[in-house]
C-alpha cells in the first residue's frame, strides 16, 4: 500500500481552513447514532472525548488508571506554547511553525506543524474559558516564559504544574459530558486489541483490571490517545503504567509505525542513584531560563568534588566550564533538548561528571538569586550591595517560580538546591515516533485514529519544550473532532456494530490465549526482571548515541530476550482478579517487540537528526550530521517478527521553509 498523507492542496496558510470547509460533516441528528471509542484520557484523549461528546457523538472512553485525571499528561511541568504574541516580541503563527520544524531537525510534516501553530492560540482561549488558572502578571493578564530552541517568550504556564492544570481542564470538560451521559467512562480498563471488521476499525477488546473480565466494545471509529513508549527503556520519566500496548496492537492489525527510533532524552532529570530505582524524575526545562549548567574545568576539581573534599559553591568562577554558554553563545542554556543532552553526555564521557557515578552535571541558580534579588532590592528601596539580603530576596523570587520543583528535588536527592547547585543528567522522556497518521490523523487502518504523543506527526526528530501539551490539545480539541466527521459521514446508516462477529471472536481468542499462556507459564523470573534487561539493552545500545554494530547486536539480543520471556516469565495469581503482574507482563511483551523495531529503525537511519544520534554521522565539532537522502518518514508495516517489518517511505517536502544547517551557535 502506498502512503497517502492526504495533505490538502493550496498555500500552507490556507490548507486547514480550506480543508475544514470541504470535508464531509455529520448532521447533529445523525451524530446521535454514531459511537466513537477513545482510548486514553490524557490531554489528547481527554480533550477528544469531551469534544466529540459535545458535538453529539456517543463516546466510550477508556483508561487503565482509576480515574481519567491520572493520565500522565498530569506530570507535565513547564508550559504550553501558543503564538499569541502577547509579549509583542514578534511572535507569529509562522514563527512557531518555523521553530517547531527547525527544532524537529526538518523531519516533521510541514502541513501538520503549520496547522498546530495555527490552532495554538485557540487552545489558550479555550482553556482560560474552562477556568484553567494560568499564571498572570500584576495587571491581570497572562504571563509567559521562554523555552529551549526559540527566541521569543510564548510559553503559558501554571507554576511547575501546567500539565496538571490543563489535564484537569480536559477532565472537567469530560466530567460535564459523563454527567450528561454522552461519555461512558471505563476506568481501570486496558485495551488489549483493536477489532477490524471488513477492513475498518470497529471496536476493541478490553480487560477490566479489577475483575479480570475480558470485554468486547464496538464503535464506528476508534481513537487512540495512549501516549508514548518511553518505558521501553524501563527507566524513564514516564509513569509506571505508561505503555505501548494500544499503539502496538494497532500496528499488528495494520497501522504503520513511524520513526520508532526518534526518542527524546531530556537533559534536566535527577540522576540515577542506584539499582533499586524504579523511575526517573524530570526537572522542568523552564529551570534553564534561570539556571546555568556547568562542570568543573579541571579534573582535579572533579575528583575533589566527588570525594566530598570540595563544595561546588566554593569553586571559583574561572574554574567552571559553562559548556552550553561556551559552545552555543546565541542560545546558551536554552538550546533544544537533544543538543543539551548530548553536550552533557560529552562532558561526562570525558570524565567531568560531578557525582559518584560520573553521570551528573550542575544546574546552578546562584547568579539568578543575585540577579532577581538586586531587582527586588531596587524595587523595595533596600540596599542593593548587601549580598546576603539580595540573595534572600532572589531566592524568594525563584521559589515563587519553581518552588514545587525545588521541593521535589530536595525530597528525592536530600540536598537543598537553594544552597548547593542541583545535579542533573539526561533521561528518556518523550517519544516523537509513533503510529503513522495522515493529515486527518487517521492511521493506515480506516476508522482507526491516533492523536497526541502516540502518533508521529508534529515533532520530527526532536520535540521543543512546551510543545507536547500544545499538540495533545490541538489534536483533541481542534483537529480530530472535525476530521473524523469526514469518515463518519459514511456511517450514518450503518447502525450499531454487533460484537458477536467472527472478527470479535478471533480478537478475543488471541487476547485470552496470551493471558492463559502467561498465567500458566510458571517460569522462574518476574516481569520486572525482563523489563530491566530490555531497558539496559535499549539504554546502552539505542540511547543517546548509537552505532551500527551496537544496533545489530541489540536486534539479536532483544529477539532472544523476547523468546526467553515467553518461556521463563513468572506471573503469579489468576486472570480473574486484580493482578498487576499480569497487566505488566502484557505490556512488557509488547515492549519486547517494539524494542526490536526501534533498533531496526535506528540502524536504517544512517544519519544523525534530533534525538537520533549515530556516532558514524557527526561533524568535526561533534554536531549531528543530517543527510538529505534520509529526508523521509520511515513507516513500518507489520509482517510477523519485528525484524521482518517492511519499510514504507513518506518523503518530506519543505516548500515554505528553507532546510538549513540546524545551528544554535
Amino acid at each position, binding site marked *: 500500500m502506498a502512503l497517502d498523507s492526504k495533505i490538502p492542496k493550496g498555500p500552507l496558510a490556507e490548507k486547514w481552513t480550506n480543508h475544514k470547509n470541504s470535508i464531509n460533516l455529520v448532521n447533529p441528528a445523525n451524530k446521535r447514532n454514531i459511537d466513537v471509542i477513545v482510548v486514553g484520557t490524557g490531554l489528547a484523549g481527554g480533550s477528544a472525548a469531551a469534544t466529540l461528546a459535545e458535538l453529539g457523538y456517543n463516546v466510550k472512553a477508556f483508561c487503565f488508571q482509576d*480515574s481519567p485525571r491520572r493520565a500522565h499528561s498530569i506530570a507535565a511541568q513547564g508550559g504550553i506554547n501558543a503564538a499569541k504574541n502577547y509579549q509583542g516580541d514578534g511572535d507569529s503563527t509562522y514563527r512557531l511553525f518555523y521553530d517547531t520544524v527547525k527544532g524537529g531537525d526538518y523531519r516533521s510534516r510541514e502541513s501538520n506543524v503549520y496547522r498546530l501553530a495555527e490552532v495554538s492560540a485557540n487552545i489558550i482561549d479555550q482553556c482560560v474559558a474552562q477556568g484553567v488558572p494560568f499564571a498572570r502578571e500584576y495587571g491581570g493578564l497572562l504571563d509567559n516564559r521562554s523555552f529551549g530552541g526559540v527566541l521569543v517568550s510564548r510559553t503559558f504556564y501554571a507554576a511547575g504544574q501546567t500539565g496538571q492544570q490543563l489535564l484537569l481542564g480536559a477532565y472537567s470538560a469530560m466530567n460535564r459530558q459523563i454527567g450528561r451521559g454522552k461519555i461512558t467512562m471505563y476506568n481501570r480498563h486496558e485495551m488489549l486489541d483493536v477489532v477490524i471488521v471488513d477492513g475498518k476499525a470497529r471496536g476493541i477488546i478490553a480487560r477490566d483490571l479489577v475483575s479480570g473480565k475480558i470485554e468486547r466494545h464496538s464503535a464506528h471509529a476508534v481513537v487512540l490517545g495512549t501516549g508514548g513508549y518511553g518505558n521501553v527503556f524501563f527507566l524513564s520519566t514516564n*509513569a509506571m503504567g505508561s505503555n505501548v500496548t494500544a499503539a502496538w496492537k494497532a500496528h499488528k492489525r495494520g497501522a504503520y509505525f513511524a520513526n520508532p527510533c526518534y526518542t527524546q532524552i531530556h537533559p534536566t532529570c535527577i540522576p540515577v542513584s542506584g539499582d533499586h530505582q*524504579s523511575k526517573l524524575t524530570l526537572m522542568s526545562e523552564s529551570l534553564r531560563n534561570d539556571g546555568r549548567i556547568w562542570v568543573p574545568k579541571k579534573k582535579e576539581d572533579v575528583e575533589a568534588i566527588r570525594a566530598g573534599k570540595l563544595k561546588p559553591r566554593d569553586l571559583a568562577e574561572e574554574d567552571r566550564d559553562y559548556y552550553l554558554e561556551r559552545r552555543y553563545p546565541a542560545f546558551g542554556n536554552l538550546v533544544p533538548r537533544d543538543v543539551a543532552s548530548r553536550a552533557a553526555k560529552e562532558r561526562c564521557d570525558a570524565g567531568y561528571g560531578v557525582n559518584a557515578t560520573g553521570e551528573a552535571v550542575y544546574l546552578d541558580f546562584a547568579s539568578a538569586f543575585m540577579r532577581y534579588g538586586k531587582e527586588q532590592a531596587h524595587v523595595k528601596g533596600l540596599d542593593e550591595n548587601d549580598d546576603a539580603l539580595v540573595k534572600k530576596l532572589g531566592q524568594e523570587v525563584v521559589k515563587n517560580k519553581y518552588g514545587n520543583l525545588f521541593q521535589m528535588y530536595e525530597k528525592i536527592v536530600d540536598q537543598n538546591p537553594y544552597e548547593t547547585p542541583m545535579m542533573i543528567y539526561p533521561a528518556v522522556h518523550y517519544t516523537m515516533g509513533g503510529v503513522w497518521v495522515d493529515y486527518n490523523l487517521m492511521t493506515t487502518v480506516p476508522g482507526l485514529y491516533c492523536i497526541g504523543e502516540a502518533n508521529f506527526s508534529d515533532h520530527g526528530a526532536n520535540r521543543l519544550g512546551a510543545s507536547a501539551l500544545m499538540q495533545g490539545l490541538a489534536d483533541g480539541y*481542534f483537529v480530530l473532532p472535525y476530521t473524523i466527521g469526514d469518515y463518519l459521514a459514511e456511517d450514518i446508516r450503518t447502525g450499531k456494530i454487533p460484537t458477536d462477529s467472527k472478527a470479535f471472536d478471533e480478537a478475543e481468542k488471541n487476547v485470552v490465549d496470551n493471558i492463559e499462556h502467561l498465567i500458566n507459564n510458571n517460569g522462574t523470573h518476574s516481569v520486572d526482571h525482563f523489563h530491566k534487561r530490555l531497558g539496559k539493552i535499549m539504554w546502552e545500545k539505542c540511547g543517546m548515541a548509537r552505532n551500527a554494530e551496537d544496533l545489530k547486536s541489540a536486534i539479536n539480543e532483544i529477539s532472544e530476550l523476547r523468546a526467553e520471556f515467553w518461556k521463563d516469565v513468572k506471573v503469579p495469581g489468576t486472570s480473574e482478579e486484580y493482578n498487576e503482574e499480569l497487566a505488566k507482563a502484557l505490556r512488557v511483551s509488547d515492549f519486547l517487540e517494539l524494542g526490536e523495531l526501534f533498533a531496526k529503525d535506528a540502524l536504517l537511519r544512517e544519519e544523525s537528526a534530533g534525538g537520533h544520534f549515530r556516532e558514524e554521522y557527526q561533524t568535526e565539532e561533534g554536531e549531528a550530521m543530517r543527510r538529505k537522502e534520509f529526508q523521509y518518514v520511515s513507516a513500518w508495516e507489520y509482517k510477523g517478527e519485528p525484524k521482518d517489518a517492511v519499510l514504507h517511505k513518506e518523503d518530506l517536502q519543505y516548500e515554505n521553509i528553507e532546510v538549513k544547517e540546524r545551528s544554535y551557535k
Partner: protein
Amino acid sequence: MNLTLKIWRQKNADDKGKMVDYKINDISPDMSFLEMLDVLNEELISKGESPVAFDHDCREGICGSCSLFINGRAHGPDRYITTCQLHMRSFKDGDTINIEPFRATAFPVIKDLIVDRSSFDRVQQAGGFISVNTSGNTIDANTIPVNKHDADDAFSAATCIGCGACVAACKNASAMLFVGAKVSQFALLPQGQVEATDRVLNMVNQMDEEKFGNCTNTGACEVECPKGISLENIARMNREYLAANVKS
C-alpha cells in the same frame, strides 16, 4: 536497613482482610517507600506468594494514584509529600511500619491497599466544570483580566491531586477539603460565576450521597494534604453554599 512491615491484606472487596507481618532486609535509605514495596513484592513473587497490591503511577507526587496510611498517617510521616515521594531515610533500622489502605465508607477496598475512589469522580461530574463547548471562537484569553491574587489563590486550590488523603485523615471521612478546593477554584475566577449557584449545590449534594462524613473543623485534612490545600477553601465553600441556598 532491616524492617518489619505490617501490611493490610485483603483478597477482594468481599474478603474480610487482616494485617500480615513481613520482614524485609537490606533496604537503602535512598529508596523511595514504593521502591521498598517493589523489593518486597519481588521477594513474594519469587516465593510463589501473592504480591501486595497498591495504587501508584507517576511516582513523582502529581497523579494522585498512590495512597497508603503509613503508621497512622495518610502518605506517611513527612508533610507536603505523597507516599511515592516518601523516602526510606525517614525511617530507622529496626523500625516496624504499619501500612493500611485509605479507609472511608466512600472508598471501599478493591484489593489489599487499593481503594475505589470513583466517588470523587462522581462529585466532579455533578458540577466541577464550567459549561463551555470547544469551538475555537471563545473570546481572546486576555479579554478578561484576573486579579493576580485571585488567580494565584484559584491556582493553589486547583493543585489538589484528588488522592483522598483528606478523607482518610478525617475522623468523619469528610470530603469537604476536596470539594471546597474545586468550588473555590471556580468561585475565585470570573469565568466560574455564571454557574456558581448550581455548582456548589450539586457538588455538595453529590458529596452527601456518596456518604462522605460531615466537617467538624478538626483540620486534620489540611495537615495531611500533600499539596497543602488550605482550610480557607472549606470556609469559602460554606459561604458559597449559604449564598446559593439563599438564592435558590
